[in-house]
């Protein structure tokens, strides 16, 4: 008889992250207090900046779009027991695919350019995920190591590509030609003036579609079933006749392709050209998003909006309260990542105990079940 039982589902997916978030805000508040500012004012500014008006909310959604893609990339890999840390690099190289298609089809229509760019970005990002997957499946090199290394390779490759291949001769800045017409993804502000000048664009619809798609993939397809078997118990998946090596390669490809969607949002939706470091760490935030969202699309959507709000609210904060510098914002974001991501298990044991004390029936039911007898 084990001494503790798992938490009820709602506590696991809602209460625990909420507590972690609260703790992160408390500590952040102390930091704000330390630099001599009013934490309540700061929170007010962040909330208003992120949700209070159309522009701000639009920016929040724009950041969230990126985090949904990278969060899903991490989550898909995690369900198969793989830790894809390479979302950043996968998104970065996917920019190549996006920009090449967008520039080539700049004279057609975005309804043609966008789907093809999605395919191209997904293919390049997917390839950048596939190679570490292949290395793990065939050569036993751990994806954690290889995906980290592939981030650096991506970074070096992109500097070369932008400077030597994509940069038009006429410019000095390290960036590709500008996408002028059809290669641009329409902005939401074109339809809803509410969003002001914010860069949130139709890519958010792709993000929503990806959330639904991943949900269906993981819980309603045979492939998703096999993926979850592999993730939960690789010996059982071999027993079940699931080809672990094939699963690892395909899963990493899907994961890389999802991360690659960031390029649609950034290259075709916001920057309208390929610039250096356009991913800006979204790949790493995706890890925190997936952790906090419990690798479930709904959780990921909520966590992505939270991090989007922190990014946008943080920008706002440094404008409104000069005492809080850009670095302070990063500290606050890091604290949230620390408490909701890295230390997400902090409250689990005490919460489990609390629940056991609160509802002994639950405990008794669990034990009765685990000791059930075949006799009548």
């Amino acid at each position: 008889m084990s001494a503790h039982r798992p938490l009820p589902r709602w506590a696991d997916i809602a209460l625990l992250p909420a507590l972690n978030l609260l703790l992160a805000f408390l500590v952040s508040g102390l930091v704000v207090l330390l630099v001599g500012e009013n934490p309540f004012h700061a929170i007010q500014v962040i909330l208003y900046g992120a949700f209070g008006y159309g522009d701000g909310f639009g920016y929040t959604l724009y950041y969230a779009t990126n985090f949904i893609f990278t969060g899903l990339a991490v989550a898909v890999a995690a369900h198969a027991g793989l830790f894809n840390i390479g979302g950043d690099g996968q998104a970065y190289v996917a920019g190549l695919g996006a920009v090449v298609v967008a520039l080539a089809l700049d004279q057609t229509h975005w309804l043609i350019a966008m789907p093809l760019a999605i395919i191209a970005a997904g293919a390049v990002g997917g390839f950048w995920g596939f190679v570490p997957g292949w290395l793990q499946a065939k050569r036993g090199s751990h994806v954690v190591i290889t995906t980290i290394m592939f981030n650096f390779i991506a970074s070096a490759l992109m500097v070369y590509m932008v400077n030597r291949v994509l940069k038009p001769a006429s410019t000095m800045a390290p960036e590709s030609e500008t996408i002028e017409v059809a290669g641009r993804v329409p902005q939401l502000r074109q339809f809803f003036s509410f969003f002001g000048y914010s860069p949130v664009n139709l890519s958010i619809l792709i993000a929503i579609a990806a959330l639904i798609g991943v949900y269906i993939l993981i819980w309603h397809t045979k492939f998703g079933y096999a993926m979850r078997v592999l993730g939960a118990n690789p010996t059982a998946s071999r027993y079940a006749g699931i080809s672990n090596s094939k699963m690892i390669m395909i899963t990493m490809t899907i994961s890389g392709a999802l991360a690659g969607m960031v390029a649609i949002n950034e290259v075709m939706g916001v920057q309208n050209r390929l610039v250096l470091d356009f991913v800006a760490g979204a790949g790493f935030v995706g890890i925190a998003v997936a952790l906090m969202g419990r690798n479930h699309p709904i959780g990921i959507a909520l966590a992505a909006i939270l991090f989007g709000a922190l990014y946008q609210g943080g920008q706002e904060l440094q404008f409104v309260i000069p005492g809080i510098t850009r670095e302070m914002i990063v500290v606050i974001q890091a604290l949230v990542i620390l408490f909701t991501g890295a230390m997400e298990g902090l409250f689990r044991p005490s919460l489990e105990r609390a629940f056991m004390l609160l509802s002994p029936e639950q405990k008794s039911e669990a034990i009765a079940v685990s000791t059930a007898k075949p006799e009548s």
Partner: protein
Amino acid sequence: MNTQRPETAAVTAPANGWAIELEKINKRFGAVHANKDIDLKIARGTIHGIVGENGAGKSTLMSILYGFYTADSGTIRVNGAEASIADSRQALALGIGMVHQHFMLVDNFSVLENIVLGAEDSGFLKPSLSRARKELDRLEEEYALEVDPDAIIEDISVGQQQRVEILKALYRGAETLILDEPTGVLTPKEADDLFRVLETLRAQGKTVILITHKLREIMAITDNVSVMRQGQMVATVKTQETSPEELAELMVGRRVLLRVDKTAASPGKTLLEVQNLVVADDMGVTRVKDVSFAIRAGEIVGIAGVSGNGQSELLESITGMRDQKSGTVVLNGKPLSLEGDDGAARARQAGLAHVPEDRQRMGLVTTFQEWENAILGYHDKPDYGSGAFLDIAAAKKAAADQVKLFDVRPANINLKSSLFSGGNQQKIVLAREMEQDPDVLVIGQPTRGVDIGAIEFIHNEIIKMRDEGKAILLVSVELDEIRSLADRILVMFDGVIVGEADPATATEGELGLMMAGINKTAPRTIGIAEQGPLP
């Protein structure tokens, strides 16, 4: 309890007094009463058995005695003096030692180092070790427990490792030893050796508490036996005055058939043929050496052998989980192609079902709900959804059918699989594999860690499969199980099938000799497990 019988034995104080007295011990986990008013007295210098099904409360009771849990109420007296035991350190100080089912040894340390570990008597290791060596010599001599103090743990047999555990407890001054399922990992001969050790311990005045499933062992070695059922102590009797049948009935609360009822086999055509199979383990060591045999429809072939003589590798390669170096597996006249890491899928498609040796590591995904496990390995079949999608309703229906047919309890297909008891988990695996109507069923350790009531059910299901004309390959370390189920016994030693026996006529002794590699026709070297004490 209507089956409760008066405590006839050990009520009057024994000559040597009581080593342990437990009175009105209660332990609740939430609303579950894991131990209900338990009274237990253990006479000093005796071997006392405790039997009961999984979840009967044996482990909880022993955990209270060893200081893992504290009782909610009740008193513990050790050697007549009231004691409170808050942790295992205090238990050891009171002379209570425990040998766990899974050994707590450091594999790459020597025997001596393991014994001293945690009981060093100075900051420097050398003097501790040399003092320990002297003490160990004395203990080994006194209790006839020979182990080479300088041998590395991973190099010695499981039986020897268990001796190290016993020596560890004795070194720490244990007067009362608790052994939790000590023979689960031992060969029959090693188990006999263990019993001799226990007898020596008893002769030297130590007290032994033996927790086990196996009634045969209780009958063979204990002086008194206590039976637990559903958190209560239902009886304590003198072993001489009881029988396995009575104990089984007390444990389960109803009559249990201890032997398997089956008719003679009527084998038909050959369904499974293994030809010249050679298989290596993960380290590249050849474990199965040129093995050939055939199984016909309607017969059960049992593979007997000491665990670790290639049976696991044989099973895994036949079922496509492990690559074979050479050889062929022919199913229903067609050679099976098993290469690649999805060989198991092709084996299943061809009609070979597999109940694996280790259900929790292989046969189930314990974090999955029951219904998800009910299709494991068969999820690609069109029955469970056409194309890429999973037909969850169809899977759940199949799961519900399996649960009903095999009487899995609780009959809740949405429950997480880890919450089922060992016997019910095994039923989930069996149901899944048997309900696919395979031609050949390969079963490893069908009843390992399974309650008596479920064992009876599982054995009957296996016989039923045979009578339906399936070919069944059975591997078990329980010689009794093989002898009662199999129609033919193949004995495996060191990767080779060393002989075949008829279960009706072969004695345990003959089989034991073959399992030890001592063949009448071709004498072989003796394996580690049988080498006896190292010099």
